[in-house]
């Protein structure tokens, strides 16, 4: 099952060239660019592993692409995403986040609805491999 998440979830996977251009945009805006990876794409899993520290003092996307390449090598069967954090006062949050990599064989995410009192519905997601 093709898992989608983040800013470009409606698009096909980005090529390296396209990823580089997004990073260029982030660096131009002085956003800190972080790389994160996980083997658990559960929608409630917000805590992915950080691949090193966020990068905020680079001039060129190549520096981030080098790290992404290292991350891919070390975690070939993981989801990898790029987050951009805007530290401007009043924003102070992640303003761009997109998947760059996904495992060859992706797990399935199953959703169960549970009817409860007063017609309310509970949703549970289970990641099945």
């Amino acid at each position: 099952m093709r898992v989608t998440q983040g800013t470009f979830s409606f698009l096909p996977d980005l090529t390296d060239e396209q990823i580089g251009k997004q990073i260029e945009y982030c660096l131009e805006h002085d956003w800190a660019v972080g790389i994160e990876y996980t083997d658990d794409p559960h929608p409630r899993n917000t805590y992915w592993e950080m691949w090193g520290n966020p990068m905020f003092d680079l001039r060129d996307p190549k520096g981030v692409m080098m790290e992404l390449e290292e991350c891919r090598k070390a975690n070939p069967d993981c989801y990898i995403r790029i987050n951009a954090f805007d530290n401007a006062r009043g924003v102070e949050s992640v303003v761009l986040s997109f998947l760059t990599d996904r495992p060859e064989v992706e797990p399935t995410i199953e959703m169960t609805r549970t009817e409860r009192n007063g017609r309310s519905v509970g949703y549970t997601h289970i990641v099945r491999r």
Partner: protein
Amino acid sequence: MVAQWGIRISCAAKSHSGAQQVAPSRPPARDGATAHSEKASALTDTTDQTQSQKIDLAEIFQSSGVKEVLEELDRELIGLKPVKDRIRETAAFLLVQKARVELGLSQETPTLHMSFTGNPGTGKTTVALKMAGLLHRLGYVRKGHLVSVTRDDLVGQYIGHTAPKTKEVLKKAMGGVLFIDEAYYLYRPENERDYGQEAIEILLQVMENNRDDLVVILAGYADRMETFFRSNPGFRSRIAHHIEFPDYTDEELLAIAEHIAEEQNYHLSPDAEAALSEYITLRRKQPHFANARSIRNAFDRARLRQASRVFSNAKGPVDAHTLSTIEAADIRASRVFRGGLDSDPKGMPTGSVKEDT
């Protein structure tokens, strides 16, 4: 056709081409290279067309801003004729190289890594900064910033510390110029476990594989650099441009002092100029003489003395002339005239303290 080429160069200098800036996973033969080899094979078919294609070098020289940088170099740096000549030569070579690639006469990016050799304070760092701007305008580096480092920025303290440190620096330098001051300290043959070796290996690899991503300039004393190259032939073979920085003459140093003063809206009285001339002759014979840097430091100290003199002598309001004139007394108060160094701790007139690093 001609104008279009010129525009493409300046665009490449202002931003960058997408194909070059990404795709680290691809093998060294990049999109650009493939396109060029296609062009080269097209050359055999449509020779007529290519031969009639013309490139206006003078136009590109103007529009890319290369001319501007060279003029700036001429204006802002006193002396350094051999260096300026070499840089002009290199700029011409790179400009022609670009044109040759455009016409399908050559395909590869020329090697751009350089070595700047000379004594301290001869302008190596200053020129490297200009070189970065030049390479950027010529379209050989995407961003044109300079990241200046020494051994301590690259080499770690324990096992496993060096590679991440070196990579951190390389990441910052991507798209620009990495300036390694006193590069020979990376190599410490007396200690076979020295972590510098690890940094050297990473650097050599990047200098070979990321030729489109960054340019490395190694700087330092000529003799030590020569020894370094002899023990690390990998570096020598990757460096195409060797530029030597001569020591400044006394006259040049005086002109530099005037230039520095002018930059900050000061001027030297005729007596101060004479005093500075003497100062330069004396200072040169003392330890830790660092050419233009010693002069800049001397000027900074003279400025302090001038301020304190003006402040304690002022009997009423002072005018701009008083505030900006350096007098002979401001220079002659230096310990250098009494056989010491200005940076010595009080009462220790021998040169034991390094003036500057």
